[in-house]
């Protein structure tokens, strides 16, 4: 079996398991909608202020809902010793990691793409003015979240305080990516295209994705096998 075939097998296995049980995606969706609701109770903002804080609000929701999903990624394999079987299976650890990453990526993106219209409706914001560019930022930012989240999910899978440790590790490391994604999202939701003043944020996102994808692929063997 070729490498990409192995990646696809793991990814589809995870997606199938999640779509049958829906244990993480339901929780994640409900959580993001509740946060969006709570924010509107808390601030009662006008349309202009809403645009100004949209990037921050959206990415905080995405990051919180994302870790809820990522927590389950490796924890799902603990009962029945599935994780040991996966590690013993004849596929490199990086293929296992990449497969899990892709499955998480699809699931987190799905939650985000549902949350966005809900955000638009609750706050009365026309968020889709620059949709292709916004989608690009979503794709890049979510990949950063998934790569970091998945490697830490693998790292914390055997710890008792798993649910606490994952966000503790993930958010500080994600700061550069989240800052850039928030900045770009705010600009794009306000209707300004990516220009000379914020193209550096896009570069930061791309650089972050490349650096941490590469390093995670190198280190995941150590994390899983020891």
């Amino acid at each position, binding site marked *: 079996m070729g490498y990409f075939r192995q990646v696809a097998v793991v990814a589809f296995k995870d997606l199938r398991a999640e779509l049958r049980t829906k244990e993480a995606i339901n929780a994640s969706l409900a959580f993001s909608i509740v946060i969006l609701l709570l924010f509107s109770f808390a601030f009662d903002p006008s349309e202009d202020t809403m645009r100004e804080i949209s990037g921050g609000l959206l990415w905080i929701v995405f990051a919180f809902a994302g870790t809820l999903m990522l927590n389950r990624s490796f924890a799902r394999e603990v009962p029945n010793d599935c994780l040991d079987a996966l590690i013993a299976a004849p596929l490199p650890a990086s293929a296992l990691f990449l497969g899990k990453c892709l499955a998480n990526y699809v699931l987190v993106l799905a939650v985000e793409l549902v949350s966005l219209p809900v955000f638009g409706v609750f706050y009365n914001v026309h968020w889709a003015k620059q949709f292709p560019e916004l989608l690009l930022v979503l794709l890049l930012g979510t990949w950063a979240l998934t790569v970091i989240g998945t490697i830490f999910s693998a790292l914390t899978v055997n*710890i008792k305080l798993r649910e606490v440790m994952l966000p503790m590790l993930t958010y500080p490391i994600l700061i550069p990516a989240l800052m850039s994604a928030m900045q770009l999202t705010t600009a794009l939701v306000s209707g300004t295209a990516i220009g000379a003043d914020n193209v550096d944020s896009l570069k930061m996102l791309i650089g972050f994705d490349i650096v941490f994808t590469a390093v995670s692929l190198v280190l995941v063997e150590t994390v899983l096998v020891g």
Partner: protein
Amino acid sequence: MRDALFSFFGSGAPVAMAAAVVALVASVVFLRTRNFLYDALALAATKTGFALLAAALAAGVLWSRAAGGVWWAWDTRLTTALVCGLVYAAYLMLRRAIEEPTERATSAAVVSVLAFLDAPLAAIAIAWWRARRTLPPEGGPPPGWGTLASGNALAMLLAGAALTVILLRREERRRAQDAERRAALTL
């Protein structure tokens, strides 16, 4: 007074950075050799760096108050130091959460590598973010702070090295005790 505070921050932060480099190298060497001495060194260097960073940050906040009248003005250097502090705090907390020594050392080394790579990206992102925000301009270093800071940095470096050695010996002693306890339990 203001100059002294700034030079305390300006010398403490680079020495903390040097400690982070030591921790990174020790972590990578541990992953390659699996010699627990390097794990203990990585822990000792990270703890030292964290302590220096905390002290530098405190001096930086006092300097910010003395120079600009506000405790926290989102100064690029101070914000970067804070983010680095948070990342290394996560490393130290992870170590406390794992019981099994080999797993703890391996996981911690991986986090150390990721944390080190994150620091420059965070520094760049914060500088760009700071440049875009309409905030009061940053207070520059006072003139002639370099001589004050370099003497200070030398002292800090020595203090840091001494602290690292103390922490390293303590960690090794603890490990030896732990090994004896395990041996006693299996008897």
